[in-house]
């Protein structure tokens, strides 16, 4: 804690630029995430939102710009410092990324085994608590391949929660799930944030889950931030891409070419 101003924000991104070769994927991104809020990064397919998340956790090295996490610059951090920092964050991957060669219980126990000096019996108990937390209490001895999509995501959350992180990142938590399971997951994310005062960063394109979970939203389009603010501010914003996104309107030109073909087929 350096001073009050800094401790309010746990993540501060300044002028972030990410390039693959010469193709600019993220262009001059700046935003701040407050402690204890659910910050949603919203955007269409291929807008760079997954790239942004992967850059935040240090999997992609940015071309330029700053990412301050707990006041430390992730982009220039040393390895030992980075490991300390990584212990304070958790990440849930899009396809859950559970280790297929280990049981669900072993997956959750792995960070505890590697980063703490706790006795095996303690680790067993903690693993069980984390699994109970996400509603997978009886699945400790199953392998990831024996779980359904929604259960895998829950197990992924349990693993991300293993070290009691302060920030948790979710990559597309509701993708590929039916509405009921997806809604269940949204409530789980909310509950986690309420219970543990967890800061959450969620990447999604699912408008319905945004309505449930988002404290603040940032909308990305073609690597740039279109709008940023809470849901009310989003309602009032008149940006055309934002309106199109929130009202689920297709692009007119794509629509014209396909409908021309469909019309001609109808005429036949």
């Amino acid at each position, binding site marked *: 804690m350096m001073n009050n101003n800094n401790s309010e924000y746990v993540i501060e991104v300044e002028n972030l630029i990410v390039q693959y070769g010469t193709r600019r994927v993220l262009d001059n991104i700046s935003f701040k995430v407050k402690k204890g809020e659910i910050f949603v990064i919203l955007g269409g397919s291929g807008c760079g939102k997954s790239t942004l998340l992967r850059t935040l956790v240090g999997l992609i090295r940015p071309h330029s710009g700053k990412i301050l996490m707990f006041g430390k610059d992730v982009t220039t951090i040393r390895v030992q410092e980075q*490991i300390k920092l990584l212990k304070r964050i958790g990440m849930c991957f899009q396809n859950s990324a559970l280790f297929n060669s280990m049981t669900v219980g072993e997956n959750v126990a792995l960070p505890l085994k*590697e980063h703490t000096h706790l006795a095996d019996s303690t680790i067993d108990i903690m693993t069980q608590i984390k699994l109970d937390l996400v509603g997978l209490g009886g699945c400790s001895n199953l392998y990831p391949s024996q779980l359904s999509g929604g259960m895998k995501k829950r197990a992924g959350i349990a693993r991300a929660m293993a070290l009691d992180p302060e920030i948790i990142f979710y990559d597309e938590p509701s993708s590929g799930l039916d509405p009921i399971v997806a809604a269940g997951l949204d409530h789980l994310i909310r509950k986690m944030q309420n219970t543990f005062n967890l800061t959450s960063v969620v990447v999604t394109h699912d408008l319905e889950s945004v309505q449930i979970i988002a404290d603040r939203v940032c909308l990305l389009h073609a690597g740039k931030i279109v709008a940023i603010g809470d849901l009310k501010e989003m309602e009032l914003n008149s940006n055309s891409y934002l309106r199109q996104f929130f009202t689920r309107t297709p692009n007119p030109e794509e629509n014209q070419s396909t409908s021309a073909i469909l019309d001609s087929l109808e005429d036949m």
Partner: protein
Amino acid sequence: MIVSFLGKIGQIFLNGVHSALVVCVLIMDTLNWLFLQPLLGRGLRWRSAIEHFVEYGFRSIPIVGLISLLVGIIMGMQSAYTLQQWGATIFMANLVGISALRELAPLMSAILITGRSGSAITAEIGTMKVSEEVDALMVMGLNPVKFLVVPKFIGMVIAVPCVTVLSMAIMIAGGFIVAVGILGIDFWAYFDQTANALVSKDLFSGIVKSIFFGLTICWVGIYRGFQVEGSAESVGKMTTSSVVTSIFTIIVVDLIWTALFYFTE
């Protein structure tokens, strides 16, 4: 046209330099996590290393053993065919023994283990990369080299020489079968001939080769595994490429060591 041709050559050269650099970094990283980091108290995953040793070594014994026996018999018959013309069939003991120890056993074992386990290493790491498991390790602050590479490395570098020594013995036994069973040479005469023909340097050169074959299989497999990008198709492509690259590199390494042993006779 000439420009594009030269450009192509330059591109191939640059790609070669790039992959050589990547392999060097991988080798340095492996050695770092194998020797330096455990001394600094960061531990080694012994249990995983032993599991890999059992998988690469112990489980490959049936197939390597069978093929070694067949190759031994073939070698016996081929050398008998030539040596019969001078009535010197007893010297097939020298031929089979020396070629098994110095060349065939290390090479056959290495090639079989490449097909069996080198491909498996690439496929495993590749699949883990596609399903973001490697990323998950990194986000947890766990080093993929420590977790995925070093246990495989230890398992492979110990397994290949062990299997090779076994393969040497079985190949010589194959020669025995031909000599004693088909040609009717006295068992003890053949035994003495074999024992006199072989010197410890033959065994030594075979084992040295096999250690380097183990290193090659492991590093090529891992390098190709980490090259996988994106899709399941890429896993298949890299697995094929891993086997081809590995066998090619093994032959080159074999040539280098054979030349070294030849000129330092």
